[in-house]
């Protein structure tokens, strides 16, 4: 029986879809069966990041409505045979989702996969609520920046009140990914430190991703950055995927520049 993880952020544009694609692939590369589902109905994007946009025949709304079966709609990733992808509907809007249909789909996916990762739409409206409704856990993605953090707190609030698990009296596990960290800005006090963000949001840390130009280069090509062994963001995603698969991997301190110690010594003589 698989675990259902919703990837949420509140604010758009913080890297939710990129995180979904990379973690899905990372889990696949760790030899676990994973499916990533794009819940952003009407604004399909996960297909582009995964480089699978030309393979989409059926989408998840068609599966929910019985117009296609799961086997027909699931698309296998080019990069890992353990990763499958289910596309969002591009023609319909978010109002087509219904709790009972979402639940049926999720239950079916749980039978076949170890990890079911749902890429939530931005915002905290109905599309978001349907994404978190049947999740066992949530990964919250933020940037070290005030509007992202505030919006994430609102999204967490809704998760804590509307998810099925919470209504049953259980707890939904929540983990934070801080994306786009610029080490020298953190060092100079111009960017929030991860401890501060964890304090404010009262949440456990899953991982930190450094700012990396390679992420855009990777999405241009439809090859998730985790495949680029030299990319620092790709390496960070690989560490997080390992943690999700139960490996003990220490947090790497990416908030310190390589030149950090050197700078401090120079600073002493100023």
């Amino acid at each position: 029986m698989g675990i259902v993880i919703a990837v949420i952020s509140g604010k758009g544009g913080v890297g939710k879809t990129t995180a979904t694609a990379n973690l899905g692939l990372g889990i696949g590369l760790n030899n676990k069966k994973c499916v990533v589902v794009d819940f952003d109905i009407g604004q399909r994007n996960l297909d582009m990041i995964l480089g699978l946009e030309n393979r989409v025949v059926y989408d998840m709304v068609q599966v929910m409505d019985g117009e296609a079966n799961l086997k027909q709609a699931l698309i296998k990733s080019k990069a890992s045979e353990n990763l499958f992808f289910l596309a969002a509907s591009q023609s319909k809007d978010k109002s087509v989702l219904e709790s009972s249909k979402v639940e049926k789909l999720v239950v079916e996916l749980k039978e076949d996969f170890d990890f079911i990762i749902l890429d939530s739409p931005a915002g905290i409206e109905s599309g978001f609520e349907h994404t978190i409704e049947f999740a066992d856990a949530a990964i919250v993605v933020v940037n070290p920046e005030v509007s992202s953090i505030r919006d994430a707190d609102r999204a967490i609030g809704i998760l804590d009140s509307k998810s099925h698990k919470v209504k049953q009296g259980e707890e939904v596990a929540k983990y934070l990914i801080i994306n786009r960290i610029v080490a020298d800005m953190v060092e100079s006090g111009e960017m929030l430190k991860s401890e501060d963000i964890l304090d404010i949001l009262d949440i456990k840390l899953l991982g930190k991703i450094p700012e990396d130009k390679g992420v855009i280069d990777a999405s241009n090509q439809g090859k998730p950055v985790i495949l680029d062994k030299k990319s620092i963001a790709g390496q960070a995603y690989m560490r997080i995927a390992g943690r999700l698969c139960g490996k003990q991997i220490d947090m790497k301190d990416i908030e310190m520049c390589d030149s950090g110690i050197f700078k401090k010594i120079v600073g002493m003589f100023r």
Partner: protein
Amino acid sequence: MISIFNFFRKKKSASIAKDRLTIAIMSDRKDSTNYPFMDQMKEEIIEVVKKYIGVRGIEIKKEFDGDFEALSIDVMLDK
């Protein structure tokens, strides 16, 4: 002289961000009426009131007054 003094004591923007966020989020959380049972409670209250009088809608607000926390329930009646 004061300006030079201020220059060296200038607060870093990350710590300003932390202070502002802490306050904004505290007030956001206060405003939210997101008890897990809120929707269900609303429906049940409507059912009870309906037995006696027509109801158009109901609004529940969480309010704070000093140390007190209160739920204010507004029932809009049918004309």
